[in-house]
């Protein structure tokens, strides 16, 4: 069945029975090509909902703003891991969220008025096609082996091979562009703080001036706050207006955590965060791949 139609049918049923107050999904954006988030409150509106390869947004993030109501949300596999993350960090109540999981073909890069053809690099490398948590599944589940760590992105490997000065230059060029709009933070399901460290005055971790050293500080601390938590949904990368390669920074840390602790965040809601726990038989860098 058509994915869009399946989502519409389910959304209609949920809204008509009053099971949820709102369905968060995708609709066609103003350029007529690329998708944008849609918040559907009326059953009559469900035909606006679509699903295609332009549906990049991680809609799980919006749950942070709708904690009081019963909400249905359309999620791709990586977004479903965000739901586990939010649940595990007690940011959402699982029984208030109805998860419409979509078997994901991967999403394309976006450009105004242009239909993207190329899958995102992360989607090309991605092996998770089925959502890890859902109440209703749209699409035929793809047979998958045991979840295995994707190899590090080739670009991260290239960076690793650079001499330190060159790598430093690379990041300086990236961070110099930052205008500190904080769109990366707003799009991120892992950024839940009511007061972000960047806005703290006592102590003042990041200066108010927008220049390379301060920007550097901002992105480094944020990356560390996400180490072992980032589910690599690419929302920050997508949100960045100056195209900073935050995906590489986060991927590096996620890869380190996966190697050291056999851990991928968001695979279950009950997982203990490796950087907050000590397991007695923890062997650094050795062992079977485990999803929790």
């Amino acid at each position: 069945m058509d994915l869009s139609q399946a989502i519409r049918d389910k959304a209609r049923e949920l809204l008509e029975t009053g099971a949820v107050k709102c369905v968060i999904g995708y609709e066609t954006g103003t350029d007529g090509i690329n998708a944008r988030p849609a918040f559907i409150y009326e059953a009559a509106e469900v035909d606006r909902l679509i699903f295609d390869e332009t549906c990049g947004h991680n809609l799980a993030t919006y749950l942070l703003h709708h904690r009081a109501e019963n909400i249905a949300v359309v999620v791709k596999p990586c977004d479903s891991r965000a739901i586990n993350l939010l649940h595990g960090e007690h940011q959402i109540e699982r029984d208030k969220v109805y998860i419409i999981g979509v078997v994901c073909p991967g999403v394309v890069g976006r450009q105004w008025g242009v239909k993207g053809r190329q899958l995102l690099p992360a989607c090309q490398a991605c092996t998770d096609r089925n959502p890890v948590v859902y109440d209703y599944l749209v699409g035929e589940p793809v047979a998958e082996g045991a979840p295995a760590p994707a190899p590090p992105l080739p670009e991260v490997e290239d960076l690793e091979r650079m001499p330190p000065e060159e790598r430093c230059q690379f990041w300086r060029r990236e961070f110099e562009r930052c205008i500190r709009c904080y769109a990366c933070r707003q799009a991120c399901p892992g950024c839940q703080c009511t007061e972000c460290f960047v806005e703290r005055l006592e102590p003042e971790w990041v200066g108010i001036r927008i220049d390379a050293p301060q920007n550097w500080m901002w992105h480094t601390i944020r990356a560390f706050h996400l180490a072992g938590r980032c589910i690599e949904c690419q929302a920050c990368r997508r949100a960045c207006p100056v195209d900073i390669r935050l995906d590489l920074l986060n991927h590096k840390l996620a890869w380190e955590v996966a190697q050291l602790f056999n851990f991928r965040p968001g695979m279950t809601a009950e997982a203990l965060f490796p950087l907050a726990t000590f397991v007695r038989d923890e062997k650094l860098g050795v062992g079977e791949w485990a999803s929790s």
Partner: protein
Amino acid sequence: MARIGVFICHCGSNIAGTVDIPRVVAEAQKLPMVVHAEDNEYTCSEVGQRSLREAIQEHRLNRVVIGACSPRMHENTFRNTVASAGLNPYLLEMANLREHASWVHGDQREAATVKAIDLIRAAVAKVARAQPLFARQIGVTKRALVIGGGIAGIQCALDIANAGFEVVLVERTPSIGGRMAQLDKTFPTLDCSACILTPKMVEVGQHPRIRLLTYAEVKEVRGFVGNFEADILQKARHVDHDKCLGCGICWQKCPARAPSEFDMGVGQRTAIYIPFAQAVPGKPVIDREHCRYQQYLEWQRAGAEGKKPPECRICEKLCPVGAIDWEQRDEMITEEFGAIVVATGYKTFDHSVYGEYGGGRYPDVITSLQLERLMSASGPTLGEVTRPSDGQPPKTVVFISCVGSRDDSVGRPYCSKVCCMYLAKQSIMLKEHDPEVQSYIFYIDIRAGGKNYEEFVRRAQEEAGTVYIRGRVSKTYPEKGKLIVWGEDSLMGRPVQIAADLVVLATGIEPSEGAIELAQTLHISYDVHSFLVEAHPKLRPVETMTDGVFLAGTAMGPMDIPDSVAQGSAAAAKVCGLLSKDTLALEPMVANVNAVKCVGCLLCQQVCPFKAIDTETLRDGRIVVRINEGLCKGCGLCVSACRPGAMNLRGFSNEQLLAQVKALTR
């Protein structure tokens, strides 16, 4: 506006011999907010402290920095001094000029002086941002929980109760008495173990301030020193102990049989039973697994197929007071306590890993605790030692020591401490039972440190004629009704072969089943062998790192009866000291939460090693954390884990520490 006074201590020549004190004082005077700086020969002396008090009053100081020794040494001294001058004691900061400067840079006067100035500058920056702190007082529940009814727990409960406090003594098995009740005689005096133990057991059973909960287990403990709350599972006995008179007709007539745990499997008991004749309470429990009526009910529940088992219920028919209660269920009891003593004791090592000794394969290879039951006059053979295989009295007995002790290859590198002595005792007792018995003991070393212990081993060798062979056993096998023991006499350097009637394995000591789970719920630490760990091996031997939780007996490591009793009494003294207070002052240097910033991710709860973080729901539905100040030790892990920066540590706030770092890296 802070008015800071700086006091530099010479510590005799300890600091003044290396650090240029006048220069440090001069530099201190230039620091912001410092209104007074002076030096003293010994700031901790009466003269030094008076000078400190006078300066506080004369210069209207509201913050104090003392550059002297480690705060571990004299912080409390100076807090009291500062408080006696009218200042809040937490508006004091110590700079460690001795351990951190003069002692470690003894030959570099210039470097040590510069470092001393840096340390003073950092301390001034920190104290300028200090807030007055006030210790909170909490009440104390004047009741103690003792977990484990062996000799250590019994002694502890009696001492606490005799001091006037209420005690709840929880024992997992149907009777108190523990391992000591299983022993025949005690070394080195050869007192009858039961004879000296049972009066204490009876005293516990009858004590007006001791509530005895047998056949019960502590499942969960919450709270903190002075205010614990414990969930205790009372297992169903199916006998109403309020009605039961302990007449014994039920266990005399019960037709079901099971191996007796108390007799270590060498004897049998009935399904409704008391573990041994002098048990306290002397009222039975029904073992559901072996009871015929329970088996019948099980058969009914399973669909009632095949041959109908007997319905039995003989105990119910014979009971003169109708005490049998089939409806009884496991019950959770929740009680409050001010202090907890863990005296969970030991079990013996599983000897089956040593295939060469033949334990478990040949019936005449038994453990020392089984021999103890065979020798006991109240044991299954009424004190007559016989071979399990044919019931004949053994004439040649071989003892093998260190079975599961001092052997790294089985993960037991430690010495079990009591085995050398009980082997000597058992060989003496065998000789007394039957003068024809010849005992051989294979040993590694003889450990007989203790009052009259060495003499006792001598007695075994000289009076009982026990042959001590230094060496290990390599093989044991049956031949013509005998057990052939192959070993090595390492002193003579030759192999030994003995045809034995009975082989006794001196199995070592290891912690009881469930000790780790209990330690985890109590949040006390245990070592790699799962023995519980004391707060300090020399100076705080019965305390734990968790306030209000104490240890006694072999739960902590191998020890003999006198040591266990001494520890029971020692733990009781600690408990009484705690319970005699009406209130406890809580350390104010603990974490606190800014609920506005807290996002309720509960990461702090995961990292807190003291279970000191609870949650609360605010009126707007937000869930935030709350610090339990009774449990918080001020370690600061939550502060570093908190992404939104909602956590702070009183006395070590982020602002103070960063100001300190800034001053140091100026």
